């Protein structure tokens, strides 16, 4: 009796969750299929659940808008400026976003690996204070610091450069906290042994600690990549000129200028969402690990 009821409950709940899962996936489905629909299909009173004719009109429109150099690189102090060939602005936005996410990821992982290791394995004065500061900072909403951050970036002449977005991401202490959780698993005997063998601090870190916190760094890398890709608020405040936009800002701009051209907007949304979803699907194992490890003792 009880067994049958358990089974009935299980079938019922799995069915409900399957329906919910379909609803959760629906917006993404609607973005992608919408980007291939004709203007007529999009503006029809009854929606086409599956595009009757697939067209690339929306993408053509997206790529035929403004042009911008596909990349630009300023060499500080020398006043040199290297620029790439012209390309559709949307491509430039994608290039900016990838650059921003990759640089944020590398800098975050490098600094957090060292700091997290030090906090977990070194006993130094001020360590407890630093940990408290990090935990408190993490609990506060990071948007409240955006106004002072904006003024700081303008006084550093970094406003409207991609660095204004990257530097605060690197400063955010979640990564340090995450690596600290992983580094606490390094057995102290191994470090003791290295010290007795006369290994330098740096060598101990590279050869003993680093291999052991590798899974943590993997998790942090993918976590930082996805979060910085999607950190709309920061990008909105720090970046303004067309050639400096990220893909998220680009779509927001498309939307502001062409409020009801949903086909065009969905083409932009597809361009923003599909690459990051592919990255997520490839690395989702690490990603899940990052989320759960960050929560332990959180």
């Amino acid at each position, binding site marked *: 009796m*009880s067994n049958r009821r358990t089974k009935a409950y299980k079938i019922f*709940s799995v069915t409900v969750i399957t329906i919910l*899962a379909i609803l959760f*996936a629906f*917006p*993404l489905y609607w*973005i992608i299929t*919408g980007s291939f629909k004709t203007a007529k299909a999009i*503006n*029809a009173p009854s*929606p086409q659940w599956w595009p009757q004719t697939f067209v690339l009109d929306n993408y053509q429109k997206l790529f035929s808008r403004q042009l911008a150099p596909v990349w630009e690189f300023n060499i500080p102090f020398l006043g040199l400026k290297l620029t790439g060939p012209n390309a559709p602005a949307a491509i430039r936005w994608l290039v900016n976003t990838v650059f921003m996410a990759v640089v944020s990821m590398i*800098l975050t992982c490098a*600094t957090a690996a*060292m*700091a997290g290791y*030090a906090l977990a394995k*070194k*006993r*130094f004065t001020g360590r407890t204070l630093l940990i408290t500061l990090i935990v408190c*900072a993490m*609990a506060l*909403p990071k*948007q*409240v*610091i*955006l*106004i*002072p*951050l*904006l003024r*700081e970036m303008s006084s550093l002449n970094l406003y409207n450069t991609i660095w204004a977005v990257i*530097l*605060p991401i*690197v*400063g*955010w*202490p979640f990564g*340090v906290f995450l690596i600290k959780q992983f580094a606490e698993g390094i057995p102290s005997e191994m470090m003791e042994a290295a010290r007795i063998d006369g290994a330098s*601090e740096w060598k101990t870190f590279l050869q003993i600690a680093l291999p052991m916190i590798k899974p943590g760094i993997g998790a942090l890398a993918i976590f930082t990549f*996805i979060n910085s890709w999607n950190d*709309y*608020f920061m990008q909105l*405040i720090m970046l303004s000129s067309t050639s400096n936009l990220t893909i*998220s*800002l680009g779509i*927001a701009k498309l*939307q502001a200028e062409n409020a*009801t051209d*949903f086909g065009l*907007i*969905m083409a*932009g*949304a597809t361009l923003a969402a599909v690459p*990051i*979803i592919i990255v997520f699907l490839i690395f*989702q194992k690490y990603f899940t690990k990052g*989320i759960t490890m960050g*929560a332990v*003792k*959180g």
Partner: protein
Amino acid sequence: MAKENNKMSRALAKRETMAGYAFMLPSLVFFLGFVIYPMVQCVITSFFDSTMNREDIFIGFQNYVDLFHDTVFLGALRNTFIIVVVSVPVVCVFSLWVSSVIYDLKGIWCSIYRIIFYLPVVTGSVAVTVVWKWMFNNYYGIFNYVGKSLGLIQKNINWLGDEKYALGCIILILLTTSVGQPIVLYVAALNNVDQSLVEAAQVDGATRFQCFWRIKWPQIKPTTLYILVITTINSFQCFALIQLLTSGGPNHSTDTIMYYIYYNAFKLYKYGYGNAMGVILAVIIAILSGIQFKAAHSD
């Protein structure tokens, strides 16, 4: 001998401290420069009348006094509380239920469901928001179409343009982007529950509910606390949705503190006023996190 030992351990301690700070240094530069310094600045500037291209003028608590006479701010505060009070319990209960069903599904299915519920988070707030804007659209939106064909509504509703519905629509979208992370956390926590205890209870004839309440719940309680805190913070920070969908309208019915900070600082250039709101928001979140923490540790 003891003296020598002492000397050696002191040298060792010195080396530890030096190494500790050397390893901390690169991270500390970024952390102090781009997190702590702006936080301190935020508090300081909240006591100033501060705007573009002009020296700041010290005005004491005037910004805070003004805030509590600003009906739009009080409305934004109320809307923010509505969002938090609705979304936090729903997110927690919903994600716990979904996780408890999918965590013991066989093989790959658990991962598949987990990924699907996480998709709206990865898709990114802007892409998610623009598609919902289309779905809620007065003329071309799928909501009106489905509502009418099911006979739920008689004529088209301007979902986002109507004070009655706008905030509800925002909360609905927020929910879809908030459950992904809690589900991942709960699935991990449920997998860590000591299986031998569960089996022992089942042998003793415990019901499904008893099994959950007596054995699993105490073990996943720390996860619940963490989820409560992060969901509260996320709901307070709800911004992209509002900026892109309604800009706080119609008639301020969807203003939240976060949006109002943005509006004051980046549209009206009232930096001091915006910072004062930021301080209040931070204090509210700190108090709520503190209460949740206390409540979780009380028994």
